[in-house]
């Protein structure tokens, strides 16, 4: 019997004894009369309700009008139906409801949190329905919000880390819809018109393109009527078409951009994986060891703990509908940028070539499995996790089977997955700062 096997058995035993099986909340799923996909998790203990409506309407749908999805989302609560921005805010705030909107590369979302008190909840839902279905996009509001966006884009220019992130995505994605930042660029936001927003809303904010996540202290029948009410103003419409896959990269490239900062911000990476990648678990667990587990990860150990080169050094995969990036990042005093980058990349190369040790894999599994309950220990976290499951069409038992999938990952799985995905000959590197000379 090998040493490895002994320790594996001990791990399992340990978990069985000291970590009672946590019953992951069951996700209920149905399709609303309008065609929206609904995901519901009832909870107990607090009289509150979280609703998250997610559309396939992120910045990847901007076409050439970079910033369109973000501005559309940002304007939803500045006027809808019979109400202007003040009326909307007063309605929500007088019942204590919180509303948020935002976009990612893949999604546009609206989140609403309310007390379950029927009258208060009713006001919150009615307001949410109007915001989703009948936003006004009035010219004066549009002009103001566009100007604020332009200023925010300008301010981005004083943040070397933001500039590094933008340059990194451009270096990786070229002409793909994931290449540009969500808020766009000055020259793409300036020409936007309110008609662009009206058209975008009409095309993408439709029931068939929506998922609704409901988490809170309500009954199934209530959840059904909540979902129906929220979507009742939307056209049925159609789901967004598939995105193209990003062009594969076959070369190493480094982008350097001088910036008058004391630190140089570094990104290195390549095109990684999709949210439904068959190698999701080996890559996820592997990266947890490499750079995804904070101060105990290899990259942090080498760059920060051993050498004091950076406050924050990490790596991660960002799984998206199409392949999202794998990226390594750090920031350090200008004169040691090259050294820190060399240390980080050597760590990545070693890991991609040899994978983790048995001990590392065991520690990672203990961390992920032992801490799984912490991902779901509030309604808010539950809402976010279910939204990801729903949007990427993961199986309904995804959360329930998560720890089992992690447990099944072997060293060989990780080694194989990293060797095929993290190819040092396809790395794109970006340096922004005084060290980027």
């Amino acid at each position: 019997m090998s040493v490895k096997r002994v320790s594996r058995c001990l791990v399992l035993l340990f978990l069985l004894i000291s970590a009672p099986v946590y019953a992951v909340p069951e996700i209920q799923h149905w399709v609303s009369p309008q065609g929206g996909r609904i995901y519901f998790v009832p909870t107990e203990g607090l009289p509150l309700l979280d609703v998250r409506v997610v559309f396939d309407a992120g910045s990847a749908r901007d076409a050439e009008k970079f910033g369109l999805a973000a501005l559309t989302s940002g304007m939803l609560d500045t006027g809808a139906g019979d109400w202007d921005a003040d009326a909307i805010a007063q309605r929500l705030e007088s019942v204590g409801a919180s509303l948020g909107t935002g976009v990612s590369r893949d999604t546009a979302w609206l989140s609403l949190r309310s007390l379950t008190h029927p009258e208060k909840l009713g006001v919150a839902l009615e307001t949410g329905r109007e915001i989703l279905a009948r936003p006004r996009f009035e010219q004066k509001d549009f002009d103001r919000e566009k100007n604020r966006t332009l200023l925010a884009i300008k301010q981005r220019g004083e943040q070397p880390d933001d500039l590094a992130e933008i340059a990194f995505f451009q270096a990786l994605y070229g002409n793909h819809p994931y290449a540009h930042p969500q808020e766009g660029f000055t020259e793409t936001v300036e020409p936007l018109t309110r008609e662009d927003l009206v058209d975008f809303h009409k095309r993408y904010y439709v029931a068939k393109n929506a998922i609704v996540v409901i988490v809170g202290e309500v009954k199934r029948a209530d959840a059904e009527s909540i979902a129906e009410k929220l979507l009742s103003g939307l056209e049925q419409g159609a789901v967004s078409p598939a995105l193209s896959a990003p062009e594969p990269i076959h070369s190493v490239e480094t982008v350097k951009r001088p910036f008058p900062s004391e630190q140089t911000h570094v990104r290195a990476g390549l095109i990684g994986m999709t949210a439904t990648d068959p190698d999701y678990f080996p890559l996820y667990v592997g990266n947890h060891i490499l750079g995804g587990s904070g101060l105990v990860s290899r990259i942090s150990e080498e760059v920060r703990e051993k050498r004091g080169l950076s406050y924050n050094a990490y790596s991660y995969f960002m799984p998206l509908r199409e392949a999202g990036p794998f990226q390594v990042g750090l920031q350090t005093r200008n004169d040691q940028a090259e050294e820190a980058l060399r240390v980080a990349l050597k760590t990545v190369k070693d890991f991609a070539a040899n994978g983790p040790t048995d001990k590392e894999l065991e520690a990672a599994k203990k961390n992920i499995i032992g801490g799984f309950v912490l991902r779901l220990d509030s309604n808010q976290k539950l809402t976010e996790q279910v939204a990801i499951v729903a949007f990427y069409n993961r199986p309904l038992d995804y959360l329930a089977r998560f720890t089992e999938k992690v447990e099944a990952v072997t060293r060989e799985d990780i080694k194989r997955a990293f060797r095929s995905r993290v190819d040092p000959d396809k790395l794109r590197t970006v340096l922004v700062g005084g060290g980027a000379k």
Partner: protein
Amino acid sequence: MLFRGLRLALLVSPLSLHAAEPAVHEFRLDNGLKLLVQEDHRAPAVVSQVWYKVGASYEHGGITGISHMLEHMMFKGTEKHPPGEFSRIIAANGGRENAFTGQDYTAYFQTLEKTRLPVSFELEADRMRYLLLADKEFKKEQQVVLEERRLRTDDQPRAKMEEHFQSLAYTNSPYKNPVIGWPDDVGGLTVDDLKYWYGLWYAPNNATVVIVGDVNPQEVYTLAKKHFGPLKPSKLPEIKPRGEVEQLGPRRMTVHLPAKLPYLVMGYKTPALRTIGQEDWEAYALEVAAGILDGGNSARLSSRLVRGQQVAASAGAGYDLYSRLSNLFTLEGTPVQGKTLQALEKALREEIRRLQDESVSAAELERVKAQVLAHHVYQRDSMFYQAMQLGATETVGLGWKTIQEYVDKVNAVTAEQIQQVARKYLIDDRLSVAYLEPLPLPEGAKAPEETAPMGGDHVR
């Protein structure tokens, strides 16, 4: 507030407990350690926090940043556990951990599956008294902290400007110094300085342990006695009052920094709940006044300055009810393109004038109170946040019961009281103003890309 690792979003707005809400169980060990336990049985998880009564406002000139530096070193080994092992053990137990330092406290936390609480107690008790503080580890960590300072402050125009603003606004209050410390002070710290600081403050009679989660209070108490009970108490230093002297007139400053946008910060000297004495309604009235200005999208700054007059691209107001020493009622904002900092300042001061001269409408006041009530329920969704509230109020000397009074105290605030505090505290003689006037930066995202292969092995 500074975190050792990644930054966490921290919402410092208060909470209170009504009849149906979970009770807080308070215990004190013989060595002086205080233990607060609140049950939350929604998920089999537990938050464990250890709060020390020491932070930047306990420091003196020349050693600023020492509390934060020590916080970093608390992960660098004891006689029993070598450097880094603390984090590895917590990770192996499925836990998440970090620490943070503020003006008024230093705190350490773990979030764990509920059966792992003993792991947290064993490790926290060990480093409360037996930290090694080795010179080799210190030298490396000092570089990490200097990198942290570059990241958070030196390369952030607004953060740097606010650092200068605080040192303008306060004459002698320790709040004039940044939590992370001035660069020369951080660079000048030695391992002996840290040993001295650790010896002064890290003791059970200077600590509060806060537990929120799926636990039984009596069992937690027994566990705490087992792990923390054997630790010896210290004779703690006398805390000097260090009250801010009276300000004798308005103060202004202009900061020139490479930046893209101008920025404005204003602050009026105000008492905190702890320093206000008998008239504690004044502090709650200031809290509500901040809510009238900045309590959501319907509040006055968004409604009037961002949307109505369109003088601000963004604007905010804030007041910290729970600081240990007297603090500032702040206003800040970014003017829209085409408007000046002067115009924005004028608009903000007009809002202060309205608070002084006009009575807040009943509907507006009700809206602020409705939000307070709702958010009070929402906050209970986060065990971590609830533990933060208990730990912070206890550590600044108000006592955790303060948070139970919050909703009632806010509900009792009248329109007249808001006017009274605005007239008493939001006046020119208490005001400091700072302008950030940008120096040109090279164009960022629009700059022509200098793209060239780097060459050499290390990028391959």
